């Protein structure tokens, strides 16, 4: 996850023109007229308002090197769903950027719904943002012994899957017979209506 502070300069949506240098940002409406004439090699970015249902976009998303999603207020969580859908349903692989009222304490949900870049609003500390990402590291120590993670930060782990790793915790726990004590066996063996789940075990 990359954080950009406002001091770094936020590229704004400008009048699109190829060859102007940098990346031109388009709204879906602008792209509808520009798409056919836009050179394939020329980088283009898409800007989506947070009330756009991304499932209905009739646009070839692979044309864009970046998509900007917007947080008009940081507590307006619509862009998290947009990001998640762009990644896991629509297969978008380019850069996803969070723009608008973006605070350091959004770092975790942003990262976990598939954003790679956060353009922080003014007054936000990069150090705080980096720290915010790391609170849930090392919760499954057995994971961190795996060679893949050696030398890196311990892997953060959560209960539910997310864009970074669709598997929930329960698919990560080593399988094997569930721990059951004697009482529970008695319990299941009484076979009251609706104990199908237990009996099936």
């Amino acid at each position, binding site marked *: 996850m990359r954080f950009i502070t406002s001091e770094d300069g936020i590229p704004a949506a400008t009048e699109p023109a190829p060859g102007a240098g940098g990346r031109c940002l388009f709204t*879906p409406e602008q792209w509808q007229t520009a798409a056919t004439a836009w050179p394939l090699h020329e980088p283009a970015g898409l800007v989506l308002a947070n*009330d*756009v*249902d991304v*499932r*209905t*976009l*009739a646009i070839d*998303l692979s044309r864009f090197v970046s998509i900007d999603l917007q947080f008009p207020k*940081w*507590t*307006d*969580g*619509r862009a*998290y769903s*947009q990001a998640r859908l762009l990644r*896991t*349903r629509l297969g978008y692989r380019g850069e996803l950027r969070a723009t608008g009222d973006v605070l350091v*304490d959004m770092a*975790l*949900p942003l*990262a976990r*719904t598939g954003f790679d870049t956060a353009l922080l609003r003014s007054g936000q500390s990069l150090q*705080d943002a980096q*720290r*915010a990402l790391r*609170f*849930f590291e*090392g*919760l499954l120590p057995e994971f961190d012994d795996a060679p893949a993670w050696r030398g890196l930060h311990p892997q953060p*782990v*959560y*209960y*539910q*899957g*997310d864009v970074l790793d*669709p598997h*929930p*915790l*329960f*698919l990560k*726990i080593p*399988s094997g017979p*569930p*721990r*059951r*004590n004697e*009482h*529970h066996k*008695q*319990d299941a063996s*009484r076979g*009251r*209506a*609706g*104990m*199908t*789940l*237990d009996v099936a*075990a």
Partner: protein
Amino acid sequence: MYQYTDFDRRFIRARAAQYRDQLERHLAGSLDDDAFKPLRLQNGWYIQRHAPMLRVAIPYGALASRQLRALADIAEEYDRGYGHFTTRQNLQYNWIALSDSADVMDRLAAVDMHGIQTSGNCVRNISSDVFAGIAPDEIVDPRPFCEILRQWSTLHPEFAYLPRKFKIAVSGAREDRVAAGWYDIGLQALSDDDGQIGFRVQVGGGMGRTPMIGAVIRDFLPWQQLLVYVEAILRVYNSYGRRDNIWKARIKMLVKAEGARFTEAVEREFADILQRDLGGDAHLITLHEFNRVASQFAPPRGVRLDASDATAARSTAPAHELAHARWLQRNVHPHRFAGLRAVTLSLKRAGQAPGDVTAPQMRAAADLADRYSHGELRVSHEQNLVLPWVSAAALHALWLDVREAGFATPNIGLLTDMIACPGGDFCSLANARSIPIAAAITERHTDLDELFDIGDIDLNISGCINSCGHHHSGHIGILGVDKDGAEWYQITVGGADGSAVGGAALPGKIIGPSFAAEEVPDVVEALITLYLQQRQPGELFVAFARRVGAQPFKTAADAVRRATAAPERPQVTATQPTATADENAAGAQPALREHPQVRLADPSPVAVKASRDGPALS
């Protein structure tokens, strides 16, 4: 009850550390009030009238004696020696200083407790049947599903900033004791003809200014698909729920505005997750996972599941003592296992606000749980404590101890077993006080003969339209309203939460303009008197109210008006509370339009040319 895994423990400690970092940045001035507020809310910290209010999560109401003792210690060390149990089975403190809040989170984490998602616009702590796992009418134990949902919803990255709060209840029994119809999502477990377990899914129930009963959008959802289906509901809500007006932001408004289109959108999203998403089937609940979680809910070690009821018969021998007989009748409940009982410790008695519990009372209840219930307690929707594993043979001994501890009032389900929010004495949202009203009614109705004669009745009191005291679902409901700075009370009759006594869930009917505080006990008495005079044999208050309608109650209540009897009396009706505090601070001006901002779009295949269904309906 659920036993924390090492991961669960590490997780809530990590959450407590994250909160401490946020608090420290706030106290140091680098995290301003607006940015800190949603963060503290999602850890249970409101700013209230006197101090921050902390709501501690008690998942599906299950509490170990050691946890209750820790809550007592926190009450004494950080609060003023008491707490308040809520209708959603949580505990609230009202006097803890914000600067102590991170320390309190650490203290809670030490006993496997937290305040995660007990407030804020996220999936709240999940509630369930107080008799889960022990009810004789149970189809399936709902607790493993509650726990699987709890884990799934905890710090869900996509659904932490929904349009509004989101509450889920799960019932596994034939009788609905969770008020499923009143929830954002109410899940009712069912068993189909082949013995397979699934859920009836109700969405869009809620109280507040617009009371609504949830619509059934799925008659039978196989249990394996529960998380995926809830994800689909939340995604539709997160994308299309209104954010322009706090009073229209709950999912009930979306369900009401869109009707069948809402259901279609959820079903389509559900199918898309499973069929089109990368790893979309990863959250199908496996049998292995269900059994892993279910094994955590085994009956406590040492409980005699095979004790016969013959022992029970002997134990009830002293039933000729009237007080004991009454206690057996009202406070002792049948159990799934013949030789066991569930016992309610009544927290409702004169001189104590409904749901309030002092530190010594917490410790006394914890001791009773250790002695008689294998160290386990439950918090009930009606704001009492329940001992779930009591041997029938020990009932008389327990009764003597319960009496000693002051929990023996045999009023469970009766008039004085009322539900009430903390009201204007504590809550900065409230328009009026609840506690003095509850106290006045309790003091008026201390005669047990009279209470038993009136029989089963739900009297619910809310200090404002946010409805924390569930007044809409009370057989008698009392709602505090504000007019020109004075406290008034609107009264409804005939509401129901969906449990067997009251029949199908239903909001009550208003019986005329609001009453002055001092009139309320007279009005309640007048309503009761009308019922006692005109009921048919065996007819409960709520059945009577449904039969005769609001008019006779209105007449009876008008007859006892004093302050509000003058011709120029203020015509007070329920108004929206002023936006002064956390819950309302995001509220915009009431919008005039009744339509959602954005119409539910019909997704088309990605590659196919189609017009985008953007913002519509202004």
